[in-house]
């Protein structure tokens, strides 16, 4: 199964009831899979698939389906994600759950269709207007892409917040076995949605909105959002780590890039080099906790090397998390090439970091 198909299948298994999207490479297999399987496996869920007229329409359809209380999702790739930002901001402002998948490609502008990780800032900083955050999850394998879809829908419902699943063209296109090992988190958690629009039979009317004109009302609402974000930051940091106990050099990478780094770690470990790896799985909230471990005096000899398919985006978060107490180096490029294992090893050796 390809990563795109695994995301789609994961979404269906996780109870996705509504999907709308506009075709864009390299996530077209995802929309095609949903077109085929959402109606065919509709069952009692009344699953709906719509090929929208634009990414704008797609994200706003997700807004509508979510307002109506359904598990709703859209997917795209970088240029399409720029168009979706309006809707994501409204979804965050109306506190609606939604899952948005971005299989990143090269930018800016039309860029190209090669894999990239250049939408890190857009995803983790909000992306649209206003003070908000989306939860951002970054799978690095086909199997993890499948499993994270459950988490994505569960977190979206739990916090009534948009969740972005951030992959890249490589993950979307590559095929890998999907063993569906039952991850304990890979089951549907049902959250009650008393706020949903269902028709006001037997209750007062519900209103979904993000508009607060009364003096002080918006600030009050924003403070409530900030409280929620704090709670998410406390509870939802996720990462994978290898060899941190004795590592002197720690690679930091997410998604596909982390796979290249894992090869480097395996390779250099065999040669006796004390090297480790941190792979953030949640990009927002960023797994600061793992870096906070290394800000004490005794850890000052640790060095971090951040590897990205972009020109230095996640490295900012690593630096902030290290609070200036550890040396943080960077290697990365995007636009077609990806940093290779050889290149990373060369950097480690030449810099002697």
């Amino acid at each position: 199964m390809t990563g795109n198909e695994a995301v789609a299948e994961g979404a269906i298994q996780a109870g996705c009831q509504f999907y709308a999207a506009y075709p864009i490479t390299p996530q077209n297999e995802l929309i095609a899979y949903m077109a085929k399987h959402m109606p065919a496996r509709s069952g009692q869920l009344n699953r709906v698939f719509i090929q929208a007229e634009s990414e704008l329409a797609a994200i706003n359809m997700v807004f509508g389906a979510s307002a109506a209380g359904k598990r709703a999702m859209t997917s795209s790739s970088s240029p399409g994600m720029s168009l979706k930002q309006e809707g994501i901001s409204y979804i965050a402002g109306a506190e609606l759950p939604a899952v948005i998948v971005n299989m990143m490609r090269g930018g800016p502008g039309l860029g190209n269709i090669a894999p990239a990780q250049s939408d890190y800032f857009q995803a983790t900083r909000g992306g649209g207007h206003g003070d908000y955050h989306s939860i951002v999850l970054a799978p690095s394998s086909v199997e993890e892409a499948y499993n994270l879809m459950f988490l994505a829908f569960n977190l979206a419902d739990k916090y009534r917040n948009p969740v972005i699943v951030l992959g890249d063209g490589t993950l979307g296109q590559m095929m890998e076995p999907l063993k569906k090992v039952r991850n304990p988190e890979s089951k549907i958690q049902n959250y009650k949605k008393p706020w949903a629009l269902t028709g006001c039979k037997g209750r007062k009317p519900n209103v979904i909105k993000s508009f607060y004109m009364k003096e002080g009302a918006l600030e009050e609402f924003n403070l409530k959002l900030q409280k929620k974000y704090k709670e998410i930051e406390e509870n939802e940091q996720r990462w994978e780590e290898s060899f941190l106990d004795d590592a002197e050099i720690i690679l930091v990478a997410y998604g596909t890039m982390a796979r290249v780094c894992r090869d480097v770690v395996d390779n250099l470990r065999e040669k006796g080099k004390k090297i480790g790896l941190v792979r953030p799985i949640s990009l927002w909230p960023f797994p600061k906790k793992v870096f906070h471990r290394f800000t004490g005096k005794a850890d000052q000899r640790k060095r971090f090397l951040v590897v990205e398919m972009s020109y230095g985006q996640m490295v900012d978060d690593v630096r902030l998390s290290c609070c200036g107490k550890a040396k943080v180096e960077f290697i990365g490029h995007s636009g077609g090439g990806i940093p290779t294992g050889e290149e990373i090893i060369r950097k480690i050796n030449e810099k002697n970091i």
Partner: protein
Amino acid sequence: MREKIIIAGAGGHGIMLLGKILAQGALREGREVTWLPAYGAEVRGGSAYCMVIISDRKIGSPYVEKADTLIAMNGLSLSRFKPRLKENGLLLFNSSLVTGKVSAKARIMGLPFTGTALKLGNVKVANVVALGAFIAGKKVLDKKNILRVIKDMAPQGKKDLIEINRKALCAGIGLINDKS
């Protein structure tokens, strides 16, 4: 065991399918496997290639920087990807479409994939002839498992495809066995 393969040719050569059958076959043997296509705007006629990794251990990067085996279906893809073949790797190229002398620091085997397929009566199975040559040349996969994959992949109502592909696979194996 870790085998990294690049398969390259023109659009329409069945490059992606060849890689997929290979990957599925490895999966049947309980191996770890990744298949990664180079995706582009071209559908027919342009260049096409994919990368397959078969391993006993968890696979890190799905990118094949240096391949253990290169399967090249035409001259253009041969010259493009030859530099990415490891020293002493296996180079299988389609001698029906590649003219001139081929040199590389590799185990070079020029075999008539297209010619063999034409003899079988369907030019489209040249990719499966190449696959047969690969499994005979590298012995990392069992023929039985490949045949099962072909059977599973054949669309309903096109069962005659299974037979010609079986023949193509055996012919590919035969090409290697005749050489050695």
